[in-house]
């Protein structure tokens, strides 16, 4: 088994173990209805995780993805609903804005972590301006999409698979994906071959923006309304998801399928805990413990594999 296979298998393994745990605690979850409930809120998390992955892929880190998703959710719940043309334009501009940030970060050699930290204030401000108190509603098509009940397999599962497959094909199989990962692996090598790192970085950030927009829209479709703080925790969640999915902070080593699985794992971990019925004092701590546990299991498995 090569390192790459292991990187791929471990996230699946941890998700499976958790899923078995959940089914054991709550057999009712083992149904069409149950799986949908367990996983539907993981869809926006998965999209946000993919967005974060695009940034981590080029060796940066995005501390603004949570507020950006909140902002997109606010736009979706207000402008897109009321004046669709304006709404979609704003979302498109937001993507362009993200790409521009990527370009500026590269051209001026700025630390991405701080620029995105600053941008998180900007997105939050815009969201508060747009929606000072919670409200809004999703465009009907979106609500219909997110509450779809396809036969046999719940929508949440299908959506997760589609997201994973599409991003996998794009990042791991397409020739453009190779260039994007190359930026993370060895920027100088691309530069020497005459590629424009600025454009590639802008593309990576633009893609992150695109998935951020999708996350915001999916979120509104599920929650039926938005507020300026709705997705703040996606920032840390998405970083954790990428890492759980076998990604690394540097070197362009990321896995889109892993990232989606990482997002599902994190969502499932929270459910697992509430099924455990811990005292509410310890529920927060247990969240941390489970994160540690999953990563520790991974370490054990990879050690054994390494020894074998």
């Amino acid at each position, binding site marked *: 088994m090569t390192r790459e296979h292991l990187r791929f298998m471990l996230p699946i393994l941890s998700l499976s173990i958790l899923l078995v745990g959940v089914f054991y605690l709550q057999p*009712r979850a083992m149904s069409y209805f149950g799986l949908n409930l367990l996983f539907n809120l993981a869809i926006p998390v998965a999209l946000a995780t993919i967005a974060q992955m695009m940034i981590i892929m080029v060796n940066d880190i995005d501390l603004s993805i949570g507020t950006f998703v909140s902002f997109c959710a606010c736009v979706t719940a207000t402008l897109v609903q009321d004046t669709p043309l304006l709404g979609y334009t704003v979302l498109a501009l937001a993507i362009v804005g993200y790409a521009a940030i990527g370009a500026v970060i590269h051209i001026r050699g700025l630390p991405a972590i701080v620029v995105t930290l600053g941008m998180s204030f900007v997105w939050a401000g815009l969201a508060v301006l747009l929606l*000072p108190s919670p409200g809004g509603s999703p465009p009907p098509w979106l609500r219909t999409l997110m509450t779809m009940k396809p036969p046999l397999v719940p929508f949440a599962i299908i959506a997760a698979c589609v997201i994973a497959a599409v991003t996998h094909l794009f990042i791991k199989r397409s020739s453009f994906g190779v260039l994007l990962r190359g930026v993370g692996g060895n920027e100088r090598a691309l530069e020497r071959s005459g590629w424009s790192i600025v454009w590639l970085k802008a593309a990576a950030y633009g893609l992150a923006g695109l998935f951020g927009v999708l996350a915001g829209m999916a979120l509104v479709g599920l929650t039926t309304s938005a507020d*300026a703080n709705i997705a703040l925790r996606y920032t840390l969640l998405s970083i954790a998801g990428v890492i759980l999915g076998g990604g690394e902070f540097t070197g362009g080593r990321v896995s889109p399928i892993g990232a989606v699985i990482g997002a599902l794992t994190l969502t499932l971990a929270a459910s697992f805990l509430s099924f455990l019925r811990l005292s509410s004092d310890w529920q927060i701590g247990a969240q941390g413990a489970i994160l540690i546990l999953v990563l520790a299991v991974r370490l054990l498995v990879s050690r054994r594999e390494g020894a074998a």
Partner: protein
Amino acid sequence: DTSGKRIALSNNYAGNSWRQAMLESWDKVAGAAVSDGVVAAADAFTTSENQATEQAAQIQNMILQGYDAIVINAASPTAVNGAVKEACDAGITVVSFDGIVTEPCAWRIAVDFKLMGREQVKFLAAKYPEGGNLLEIRGLAGVFVDDEISAGIHDEVSRSNFKIVGSVHGDWAQDVAQKAVAGILPSLPEITGVVTQGGDGYGTAQAIAATDRPMPTIVMGNRQDELAWWAEQKAANGYETTSLSIAPGVSTLAFWVAQQILDGKEVPHDLTVPFLTIEQDGLEAALETTPMGSVSNVEYNLDDALAVIDPAG
């Protein structure tokens, strides 16, 4: 008969004394109800982050766990509507309180937050008919309660002689309020009164005490440290103010309402509870019953609940 029914409390935040008192009241009252055999279970759940998305997931888990009723203090009035709707569709009774939800299928035990804002200004207007400058301490930006209280305050101020000369966000935390006030004070003219949202009065007083300004009238929010400071000032120089907040024990009221609904009682979907006001005279009494470092509280029993339900119905 609800002895076989199971009720869950969905809470989105446990990081301050108000929420802790709320959880404690729930444990006490609902726990007693379980041991008395009134209901089969009354479990409390808190999300690890104060986020609507987490709470929505939590509610969905409760649906899976097969609770008969879910009592919610919601992170957002609208953002958990999707999950609440799913719960209703699964035949679960949903009762929201304090942080209420707008989904029509749920019950709401609401506090008139706008009125809370208005009352503060009314009190100050009675004390200073000639008006003056006000400093406003707000809560967390983008949150419904903050917007409501502030709207009430501004509405009433426009009908008085007062003028709001400064406004800062204290995030309902003493230390954040203290910092924000300390930062804006130097650029403000003399302040007559401070309108607050609860949990931020003591921090404000600390920040003002650190300067050489005269102490304005700060409306308090029923925290024990606020009351203790007020009592101290009152003893020293006859300081006068008022204190108002929603009582954390309203969670127990929500519990009884849920139990009554499960019992088959017709309950209107919108109920209102008064907030708990402490006046100059009641200060010492209130202070005595408030545990050190906690919040003034009242817990409700079944009769209180019926009293709230009936006049409304």
